[in-house]
């Protein structure tokens, strides 16, 4: 009897590991930028190319930096959520328009709504590299002192907004 119990136990242990593996997201690579100052940059704004934006402009505020592009399919998926979030006006959302064409980006916002306080244009993706962007959309929660407190890879879901982003934003805004 005992002889059969050992392989069975091994099988169940394996099963548990595999089950845990299924719930993990391989795209969710922990960002080394967490709790580090948001990398500085100075980029032109999408709506007004003569004006620029730096993360330093947001000092003293809790804000979200959302990396998006008109060619990015998952960005469309999360977009209504961002628009609704911006309407509530909890914290400002700044867009980082990543490796996009100006006209496409503007059309996209006109068509699906513009939740952003402003969008900075990262045409060649160099700022994206500094932020460790590897799959748009990505969202960073940045605190009043300009530290990255959280990085969310992939489209924001109602669930991740409710359980991760909003509680963190509320805590940081205190």
């Amino acid at each position, binding site marked *: 009897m005992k002889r059969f119990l050992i392989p069975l136990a091994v099988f169940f242990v394996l099963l548990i590991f595999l089950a845990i593996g299924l719930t993990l997201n*391989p795209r969710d*690579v*922990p*960002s*080394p*930028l967490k709790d580090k100052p948001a990398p500085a940059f100075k980029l032109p704004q999408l709506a007004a190319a003569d004006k620029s934006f730096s993360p330093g402009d947001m000092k003293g505020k809790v804000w979200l930096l959302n990396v998006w592009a008109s060619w990015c399919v998952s960005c469309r998926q999360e977009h209504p959520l961002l628009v609704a979030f911006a309407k509530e006006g909890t914290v400002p959302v700044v867009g980082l328009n990543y*490796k996009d064409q100006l006209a496409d980006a503007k059309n996209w916002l006109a068509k699906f709504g513009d939740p952003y306080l402003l969008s900075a244009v990262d045409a*060649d*993706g*160099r700022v994206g*590299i*500094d*932020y*460790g*962007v*590897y*799959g748009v959309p990505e969202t960073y929660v940045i605190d009043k002192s300009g530290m990255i407190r959280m990085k969310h890879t992939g489209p924001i879901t109602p669930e991740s907004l409710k359980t991760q982003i909003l509680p963190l934003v509320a805590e940081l805004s205190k």
Partner: protein
Amino acid sequence: MKLRTLVLCCTLLFAGAAMAREAAPMAADVEIEKRMVAISEELRCLVCQNESLSGSHAELAQDLRREIRKMIAEGKTDKEILDFMVARYGDFVRYRPPVKPTTWLLWGGPFLLLAGGIGALIAFLRRRATESAAPELSEEERRRAAALLDQSNS
């Protein structure tokens, strides 16, 4: 007619040459390219996670290779370039992550499994050795066995 055909052929021939643009200059310097490939083979492409940065066609991989070339041209050491990548994408970009508390299991795990396997094998062999030893027969059993053998022989 013949001449026209010839001209047409020539035009078509050279049209191809005119349209084919020269491949984008990958690197001005072969040495830079060599070092870039060596470094990027150590790095994982985060877009297609099972490909190295050197072998990936993902746009991000191209951008990162360009960035590596630039840093080599600026005279950065290999370590500085690797640190640049790790600072942005974490230890996960390295195919050989540094040994530290969070990666102990990763580095030591296979050896733990090996030790466990050897232990199980030794236990199994020992048990088999004791089990397969000839069973002791009592005097009574011996007689009965002999009787049975005699019966079948006759």
